[in-house]
């Protein structure tokens, strides 16, 4: 523990604290934290340093902070591009904000921890493939599918998720990306069913396509959006819902084009 005396506002430069707080908020939003949690964490971090008149406003595309440090009025704003849900990072960032506000970390240590997080290990390719396979494949059972549909859907989900991951690196806009994503989900679902048909195994295509599609559907985004609206963060919630709706429309376009071609 660091004693409280060393921790008052005079010790660190005004900008230093503010930049740390906004970087924390930005990273949290990028990892998929809820809006209210980001606003709470950032204000708690600033409060613990004796900053007054704190206002934090977070939306999925930007964070704003306005406050008064040592009698000086300050504003800071950062633009956010590209969020993807990363629970490990989310959890670690939450821990840093807690430890910093309760005085376990000083600013230098907290900054070091923050830099360390950007390099957290991801699951390797095999595990993320298996995760996508399981995530998509087991849906078939929830909708009364058989073992045959499960196997086909399991494989198709994995391939789709891998393709979609490499598609994300190409830098398309999110709408076009999801049109292509929906198309390949349908394509793999359909061609795997046909392949199984060639060796004499019949399965229901509608059940199979659900698996790969499920790995792309913005179910989490739409629920967190609605939850933000219920919690009173109307702008952030609306932005999230809007994005989710357009992802769903994109997927619908993609799958629709494919279904048009085959049916």
């Amino acid at each position: 523990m660091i004693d409280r005396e060393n921790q008052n506002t005079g010790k660190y430069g005004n900008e230093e604290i503010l930049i740390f707080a906004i970087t924390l908020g930005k990273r949290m939003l990028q990892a998929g934290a809820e809006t209210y949690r980001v606003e709470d964490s950032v204000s708690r971090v600033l409060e613990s340093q004796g900053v007054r008149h704190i206002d934090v406003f977070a939306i999925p595309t930007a964070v704003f902070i306005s406050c008064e440090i040592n009698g000086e009025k300050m504003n800071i704003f950062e633009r956010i591009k590209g969020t993807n849900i990363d629970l490990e990072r989310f959890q670690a960032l939450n821990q840093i904000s807690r430890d910093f506000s309760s005085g376990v970390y000083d600013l230098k240590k907290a900054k070091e921890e923050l830099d360390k997080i950007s390099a957290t290990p991801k699951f390797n390719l095999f595990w993320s493939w298996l995760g996508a396979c399981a995530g998509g494949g087991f849906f078939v059972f929830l909708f009364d599918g058989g073992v045959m549909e499960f196997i086909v859907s399991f494989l198709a989900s994995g391939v789709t998720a891998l393709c979609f991951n490499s598609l994300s690196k190409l830098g398309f806009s999110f709408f076009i990306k999801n049109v292509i994503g929906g198309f390949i989900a349908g394509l793999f679902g359909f061609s795997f069913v046909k392949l199984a048909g060639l060796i004499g195994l019949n399965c229901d295509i509608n059940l199979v396509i659900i698996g790969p599609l499920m790995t792309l559907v913005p179910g989490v985004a739409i629920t967190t959006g609605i939850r933000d609206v219920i919690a009173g963060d109307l702008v952030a919630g609306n932005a999230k819902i809007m994005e989710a709706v357009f992802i769903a429309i994109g997927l619908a376009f993609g799958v629709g084009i494919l279904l048009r071609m085959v049916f």
Partner: protein
Amino acid sequence: MDMIFKLLAGFFCAAGFSVMFNMPKRLIPCAGISGVAATLPYLLILQSGGGLILAVIAGSIAVGLTAEFFAYYTRNPSSIFTIPGIIPLVPGYSLYYAMLYLVQNNVDQAAQKGAEAVITAISIACGIAISMSIKREFTAIKNRRK
């Protein structure tokens, strides 16, 4: 037997998605269990004819409470358990059918399935919000007793 099979499916769905969302390794079983918590009331209510909305709300309340429980014991934010946990309830199936009917020029049924998807999503969010306020009341009462 069928029921147990579906619960296992719920477990692996949630666990699979938690890998996609880069969950810390030791917490993956917890994510799977919140998937089971979603599936159990959902299936029971659907089978007894309680209707879709009630089933989804009950499922997501169960997810929310399980997540709060895990959050309390592992000292983590509860939403890292709810995010994979709600996956078995997410309306991917009705969304797909809405698209399919739309492509087949069957607008009536497309609208019906689309509305079903929207209502399911709203119900999930409501369930999570309800469980969060239950937890908040619970801690308030506990603090008052002390």
